[in-house]
């Protein structure tokens, strides 16, 4: 245990979640700003879609981190697949926004689609499928749920159940006596 952890363990434990919450709040605010800009009297400003292109991947990444963070260990090795997916989404949306529209009869096709479409369909739509569910399965025991975790929960559940039985029996006795 490091010195800082000893000094303030609660604070240390929450670092990952706190960062994820801040990122989620900032991303949602950016998305709100993009929608707000669309209500302006002139045309939607060109920066508004960029706010969504960055804000949406960050919001999705942040909420996944919030769900996957496990106490003091944070998200462990999941930081790699999470970072990969957020970056892939930002690059995919960004490329679609930034690259010039060159689609035409002579366009070069990538796996059957013009370049910008291929980036979106195969990059945004397929790459995360290959990475995220596999990362979830590979880290399940260390990051999500162990047999010990489950047993702790089940013991607690049994305790609650017997407590409510006892309370019910006591209430019945009180009723008979009263």
């Amino acid at each position, binding site marked *: 245990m490091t010195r800082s952890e000893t000094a303030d363990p609660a604070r240390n434990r929450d670092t990952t979640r706190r960062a994820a919450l801040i990122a989620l709040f900032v991303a949602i605010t950016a998305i709100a700003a993009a929608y707000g800009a669309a209500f302006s009297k002139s045309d939607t400003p060109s920066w508004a*879609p960029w706010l969504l292109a960055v804000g949406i991947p960050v919001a999705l990444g942040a909420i996944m981190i*919030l*769900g996957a963070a496990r*106490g003091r260990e944070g998200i462990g090795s999941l930081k790699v697949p999470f970072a990969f997916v957020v970056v892939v989404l930002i690059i995919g949306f960004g490329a679609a926004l930034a690259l010039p529209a060159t689609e035409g009869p002579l366009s070069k*096709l990538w796996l059957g*689609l013009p370049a910008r479409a291929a980036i979106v369909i195969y990059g945004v739509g397929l790459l995360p499928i290959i990475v995220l*569910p596999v990362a*979830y*399965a590979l880290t399940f025991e260390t990051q999500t749920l162990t047999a010990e975790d*489950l047993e702790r929960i089940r013991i607690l559940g049994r305790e609650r159940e017997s407590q409510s039985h006892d309370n019910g029996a006591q209430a019945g006795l009180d009723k008979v006596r009263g």
Partner: protein
Amino acid sequence: MTALLQAALPNAARPAVVIVGILYFAVIVGISVWAARKTRTAADFFVAGKGIGLVALTVASVSVSVSGFAFIGGPGFIYAVGLGAMYIVLPAAVTNVMGAWVLAKRMRLLGEVRALITIPDAIGARYRSRLAQGISAAAILVGIVGYMATNALAMGVVINSIFGVGLGWGIWIGMGVTLAYSASGGILAGIYNDVFQGTLMAVASVLVFLFVLDFGGGLGAISRTILAHDPALLGPWGKITPLAALSFFFVFSMGSLGQPQAVHKYYMLRDPLQLKWYPLLKTLGLVLVLLLYFGVGLGVKAFVLNGRLPELASPDQATPALLLNVTPLILAALVFSGVAAATMSAANSFINIGAAIVTHDLPIALGRPVKNELGWGRGVTILIAVAAAITAQQSGTMVAFLGIFGWGLFASTLVPALAVGLNWQGATRAGAIASIATGLIVTLALETAAYLKVFTFPAGVTASAVAMVSSFLVFFIVSWLTRRNALIEIDPDVRLVMEV
């Protein structure tokens, strides 16, 4: 789904289609009789006794995640606007695994420690609040009213198309069959019918996709045809604006965390440790079912442009035109049964959730729990189904309006309070209640104003997106303002579930 209503499917009543349709309904009846014999308690009725295996749960979950829109309206949308329509389904790459990380474990463990059976149950337990449970139940019920009427009408359209019995009878037959298995076998019948229906949808989707590729000479040849006539369709946003496409992605990715028909399934898994493979299997299943959405939309566009199919009367005719003019009839029969399966599967799930809200959540919120939940559950199931069928017989415009806000309403009312709240101990009861109320009010107000044409959204902005962003911000701000109460509002067992 709305598009499905307006599609006015052509009459497909050919002998092969009718025979496959009859076989489909016979299997549904067989599964339902078996499930009815196994349903003995309210937990069996509402959460299948928490005894569903991994594969069955996965296929069932895929089945309820896909409505008739994926088979009819979706391909029509691609036909009309090109790849911009893909932003509705592209989030499937992340939503299943995101749901697993954010909700699956916590919901399943809450079910283990508290014997919970509904989503409002989870909200009530998390915030130790009957009001939060009641208001979330009311919000879900409002969404279900809309979805149910829309699904009932969609069922009528599809059954009329298969059997040629007329729309009114189609609604009553579809709802009658769904009701029979919902009321007798509850969610157990629903799950195993979903397994059958999901398998049917996946098989139909893959076969049609392969047929389209073969008929069109491959994806490259299909793209070449479209690029020669209308290259904007194959731009990264199709013919919609980047803001609109990205809005779809936002609402259908983040919003997936609040869809009760999918989230409710987390309670049902027999062994929580089996969650390990759930996202991978569900994502692969969804990809298979959605192949038709992509393939038919682009394929039919190319076939119309190069003259192999006549011009369509409306974009929603894309799938029916392909099936009735080009594919072997047996494939058409499978897809029409698949569309019926999609609508019935969604309807069953919503009926069951609605019945649980009326007989379980609302009485608890009012402090008057019902004693015989199973009996009342069956009764309310019948009432909801009949009410939906009667509503669906009314004006199509009104029913379409009811169906519009379902997804957005669930997303804006449930995502912050449930998905974030189960993973953040700093969230407060006041924050959750304010957020749910905001989602409900903003969605209803904006959708109604837009429907009555009092107000027009700028291009690319939807009521669902605005409502979801608003409820998120309210949730964060009110939780921060009331943060002193955060930790004392969480029971020790719920805290353990949140910390595991």
